[in-house]
Every structure is written in C-alpha cells, then in structure tokens.
C-alpha cells in the first residue's frame, strides 16, 4: 500500500516539474512537439528508475558503512553521468528502434536536475531499495505527464495570438503556472 502511495505522490501530488521545479530545462526545451515530448519522457523515466536503484546501493552499501557521506554529491553526479553513458551504449546494442527514438535525448539527461534531485530526495526521506525504485518510476511518470500536457498545449499555442513580448519563454512559464495551479488540486489526495 505504501508503495502505491509513493508512486501516486511522486507522479501527481508532488509532481517533480510543477511542484519541485526539477527538470525545467527539458520541460521548456523539448515541449514544442508532442512526439519528442513522449520520447524524452520515456528516456527520463528509464534513467530515473535505474539511477534511483544504483544511487541507493552506492549510498547505503558504500558511503554509509565507510562514513564518507560528504562525498554524496560528487559520487551521485559521477554515477549518474556514467550511467547515462552506459544506458546509451546498452540501448544502442539491444534495441535499435528504441535508440533511434531516444537517441539525441539520452546525453541531455545528465544535466537534468530531476535525476540528481530524485537521488537526494530518496536519501533525505530514508527510502528503502524498493521504495526508491518506485519513487523513481513515479517521478518519471509525473515528468512525462507534465511534459506531454505542456507539448499538447504548445502545439495549439502556435495558432494563438500571444502578445509580442511574451512569445516563447514568457508564455511557457505562465502556462506552466496555470498547470501547477491545476495540479495543486491533487494536494489533498495523499500526505507524504
């Protein structure tokens, strides 16, 4: 039951993009087309789930027993950067269609603050291994959801008459604000 709550909480109630402001760069950069938004969302979810599991192992099996938690940030970011590289190589070997779909988005994920944020939040909340994994999947699903909604709105927006000074980034931020307002409706659902 707790696992389901963590998933729903990470996906909608505490949506990473709209309440924690994590992963905004791809949210603004890759939300122009619906198709690329779906690919990016998939790639991020994939890396999030794996990195949540791996950073949990690193923290609990390596950093805590040897009392070197001060290396938390350095080791997490290195692990995430190499993980993204590995995942890219693995996907290219195993599934060519998936690689073509995710291709250019994979390297961009290293600098996606949602991945590091996820690892840090999992440590702060003392999640266990399975909980971290589910947290990663939920956060990825929430990221994909926000990105797809945003891309859908922005495709429509091309036909709208936006005031000159707000074209591009300005109106994107204001739409994101309205989306965040809508997502606040979920806030009473679960309290974690």
């Amino acid at each position, binding site marked *: 039951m707790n696992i389901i709550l963590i998933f729903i909480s990470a996906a909608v109630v505490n949506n990473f993009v*709209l*309440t*924690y*402001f*994590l*992963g*905004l*760069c791809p949210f*603004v950069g890759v939300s122009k087309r619906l198709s690329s938004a779906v690919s990016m969302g998939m790639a991020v979810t994939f890396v999030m789930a794996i990195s949540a599991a791996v950073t949990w192992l690193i923290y609990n099996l390596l950093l805590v027993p040897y009392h070197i938690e*001060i290396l*938390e*940030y*350095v080791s997490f*970011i*290195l692990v995430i*950067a190499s993980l993204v590289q590995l995942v890219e190589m693995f996907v290219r070997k195993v599934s060519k269609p998936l690689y073509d779909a995710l291709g250019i988005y994979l390297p961009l994920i*290293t*600098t*996606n*603050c949602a991945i*590091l*944020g996820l690892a*840090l*939040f999992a440590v*702060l909340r003392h999640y266990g291994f399975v909980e971290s994994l589910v947290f990663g999947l939920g956060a990825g699903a929430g990221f994909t959801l926000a990105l797809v909604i945003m891309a859908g709105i922005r495709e429509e927006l091309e036909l709208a008459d936006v*005031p*000159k*000074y*707000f074209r591009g*980034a*300005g*109106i*994107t*931020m*204001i739409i*994101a*604000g*309205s989306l*965040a*307002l809508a997502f*606040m409706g979920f806030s009473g659902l679960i309290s974690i």
Partner: protein
Amino acid sequence: MGKQKSAITREFIKGLWDENPVLISLLGLCPALAVTNSAINGLAMGLATTFVVVCSSIIISSLRKVIPHQVRIASYIVIIATFVTVADRFMAAFYPAISKALGPYVPLIVVNCLILGRQEAFASKNNVGRSLLDALGMGLGFLMVLFTLGTIREVLGSGTFLTYQVMGDWFQPWLVMVLPPGAFIMLGLLIGLSNWINDRRAKA
C-alpha cells in the same frame, strides 16, 4: 554608450543584463523558481551559486591546458560538486535555518546548467582574470534576478520583506505567490518585462 566600454569591463557587465542567465538564456531555472518564496532565500541561493561559479571558473580556467578534452565535462562536474559541498557545509554550519529552508536545492547547484555552461563556454577558453570577471558577472546577474523574484513574491505573498511587515493591515496576502504556480507566473511576467525593456532600448 555601452559600446565604448573596454572589453574587460564588458565580460563583467554582460552577465548582469544583456546575457542574463535567467531572463535571457533561461539557465538555472530550477533554483530560480524553487527557492524564491522569500527574498532572503533568493539572496542566499544567489550568493551560494555565485561562490560556486566563481571558484570553479578560477580553478577550471587555470587548469584549462591540463584537463584532457575527452573527459572535460566529468572533470568540470567533479570540481563544481566539490565547491558545492563546501558551500553546503558552510551554510549548514553557520546559517542552519537558511540551509534547512533551501533543503536539497543547495546540492542541486551541481546540476545548475548556468555553472556548467560558463565553464564550457568561457572558462575553458579564457585566462583566469577574464573568467573570474565573467563568472562574477553571471553570478551577480543570477543573484539579482533571484533577489528581485524573491522580493516580489514575498511582498505579494506574505506582505513582508526580509521578514519585516511592509504591507498594512488592509492587505490580504496573495497566498498563490509563495506557492509553485506563483513562481512560474511571476517569472513569465518578468521575462515579458525584460523583453519589453530590451525592445524599448533597441528602438531608442
């Protein structure tokens, strides 16, 4: 009038407005939105980021001939992460309340694309002095936006400025301003405003 300034001064000035990291390049949006629910948090985050970008720029520009090209990004990230750890421990030791309020957003300075972006675009190609000025300008430009955004949101959202009451009793705080939606909407308005000012300056 800006055109007569020497090239050195321009490295510093450009980060403040013309290439402002948040308003123009849209870098470092996560901290710019997440911690600006009060002016003091915005100021603290701005100072921490300035510290990290200045220190990493000094180190990286002095090591720019030593770091192999293939592993440069990984090397930059390790250097940045080290300074972030220093800033994080410093804040936790001397300003525990602010450190608690900023929470995981202090370690997240590591992945602030503003910092990595300056290393890749500037510090890796220029000498220490110029990199220092560039980093200082970018850091202060970032700090300026965060402090402005924090001030607006705090005044409208809680009626206070740096925790002092500035609005009278008649004022009903706009709660939404200290919540996530307020951050997005206010940044959108600020970006629109800066576009308008730039347009006016270009015409003048």
